[in-house]
């Protein structure tokens, strides 16, 4: 067991290393930090630019492999380098990871719980009106790209705010700066900020999870063990919740862990459009500002997140399913 886990972790480390290195090389080749200085007035002398770029380990006149060696050496010591403005990437990422985590966690919980409930209900009454409506709605939601959905939500919020004459939904940022309304006031403020991004994140998740749960549930509804439970004298409801739902939840929970990892950098659009200063927004910004080190750091983080999620989903699977655990 331990040996197996070690081998698997080693495989993960190699994967992360290769992925991050690839991302760094690509970013260092394709992005051009030098161009950041082109628009400055007065234009700094080339020697100064060179010196600054070298200090940031971004100088394209230094051979790629040499820059890579410096970057990789830093990463091994836990230093992700400096961003284009000269501040350490570590601090930046840590702050933004917190923002993203808060946003994604709530979105995931709302989305998965809602989706599981919808899907289970739809499966129990397959081809009933509820099933048809929820299926239709989830199809519609899945066809709307996040960028469109987020913009539609903003338009809707603006319309509501205009109608009511007060700011019910706040469409930009995580909280209002310099607010002095005491504890409950700032909680309310945060909730007002949180509603729209959470809806935008969780709506698609509800759709995905409900489809998934519905299919899993349909698979077990016809299963022999549900029939056994009924043959014991359990009521339909008890047989469905105690035996069918519990069994159908196993793959869904596994999927939950996996999605969570993928979303840590996948909330890009929601963050960018709603002005949350999270990792996703940083990713877009760093590309525009030719910030090679930040791009590489996010790629590294994303790779780690995906692998952690896949490991977590396997562990969760083992914890929930005795067939896997004991096996």
């Amino acid at each position: 067991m331990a040996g197996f886990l070690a081998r698997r972790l080693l495989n993960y480390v190699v994967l992360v290393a290769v992925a991050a290195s690839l991302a760094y090389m690509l970013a260092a080749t394709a992005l051009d930090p030098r161009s950041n200085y082109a628009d400055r007035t007065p234009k700094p002398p080339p020697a100064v630019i060179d010196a600054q770029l070298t200090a940031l380990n971004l100088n394209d006149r230094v051979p790629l492999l040499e820059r890579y060696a410096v970057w990789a050496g830093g990463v091994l010591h836990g230093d992700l380098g400096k961003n284009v403005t000269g501040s350490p990437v570590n601090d930046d990422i840590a702050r933004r990871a917190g923002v993203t985590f808060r946003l994604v966690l709530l979105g995931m919980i709302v989305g998965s719980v809602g989706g599981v409930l919808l899907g289970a209900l739809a499966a129990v009454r397959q081809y009933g009106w509820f099933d048809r409506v929820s299926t239709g709605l989830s199809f519609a939601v899945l066809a709307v790209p996040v960028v469109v959905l987020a913009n539609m939500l903003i338009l809707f919020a603006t319309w509501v705010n205009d109608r009511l004459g007060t700011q019910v939904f706040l469409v930009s940022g995580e909280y209002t700066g310099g607010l002095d309304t005491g504890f409950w006031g700032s909680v309310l403020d945060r909730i007002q900020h949180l509603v729209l991004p959470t809806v935008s994140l969780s709506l698609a998740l509800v759709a995905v999870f409900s489809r998934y749960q519905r299919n899993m549930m349909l698979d077990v509804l016809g299963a022999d063990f549900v029939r056994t439970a009924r043959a014991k004298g359990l009521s339909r409801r008890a047989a469905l919740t105690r035996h069918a739902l519990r069994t159908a939840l196993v793959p869904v929970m596994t999927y939950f862990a996996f999605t969570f990892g993928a979303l840590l950098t996948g909330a890009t659009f929601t963050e960018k459009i709603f002005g949350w200063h999270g990792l996703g927004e940083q990713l877009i910004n760093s590309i525009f500002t030719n910030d090679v080190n930040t791009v590489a750091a996010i790629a590294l983080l994303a790779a780690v997140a995906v692998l952690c999620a896949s490991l977590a989903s396997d562990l969760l699977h083992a914890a929930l399913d005795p067939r896997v655990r004991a096996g």
Partner: protein
Amino acid sequence: MTLPEEEVAEELTPGVPGRGPRRAPSRGRVVVRRFLRSRQGAAGLAVLVVMFLLAFAGPLLSPWSYTDRDFTAFLQPPSASHWFGTLQTGADVYAVTLRGMQKSLIVGLLAALVSTALAALVGAFAGYFPGWADRTLTWLTDLLLVLPAFLILAIMSPVFGEGTWALFVLMLSLFLWMVTSKIVRSMTVSLKRREFIQAARFMGVRPVTIIFRHVLPNLSSLLIVDATLNVSAAILTETSLSYFGFGIQPPDVSFGTLIADGSKTAVYAPWTFWFVAGLLVVTVLAVNLVGDALRDAFDPTSTRPR
């Protein structure tokens, strides 16, 4: 529970001996019939056909081309001369939207084709040949899964200049195939244990021949459904990338670039946003409906009532 009517019907009709050496696969015809019987599938297909007609024949109906600027009408609502209104630049929204739709549809279709083919080949070979071939291919698949696709595509966006959209399609498909490939691999592994594959093996059929003659045809339903759903995935990814300016580059337009521009003016000039957003949603919805109906049509156990 109940046998679908057509299956019963098939059991009842005695095999009419055809004359030719091969008939069209009856299974294929069953699938087509089941597909068309499903209301949502037929509707999705009809909408998709209309969308294609609109995208490729629609521009002929309008006097405006997507490069034209009407300097007498900036940001005007829909009218007789500009059916969908105009943008801030004076461009005709109808012409621009259809042009964007052309691009998005082509990108989506091609990317889906390429990525599904890739998934099928990599998955089938990894599943059929255990050992180093499997390990290498699986490792490559994992690596691409771990790489943040959006980031890589975004970094590479400067390369997608004018006229290199084919490269963009290729890169897009490079990040769409991994999950399917994993499914194909595991299905190949179980298929390989199936007796008809073993029978072919013990008959002396070569492995590569077995993959193309037995494995891939038996995964065709999965692959067709997957290719369909990949179309919508590709369109959505393209839209998102282009929204941030990482995809199709100006002066060419796509759904993504149009939505990005439109969302800025949506509050006071809704026509710049809603037409393109609506068309996008309807297109993706139609593709998904077709994919779902195909899945049901292929699944012999599905009992969807008509």
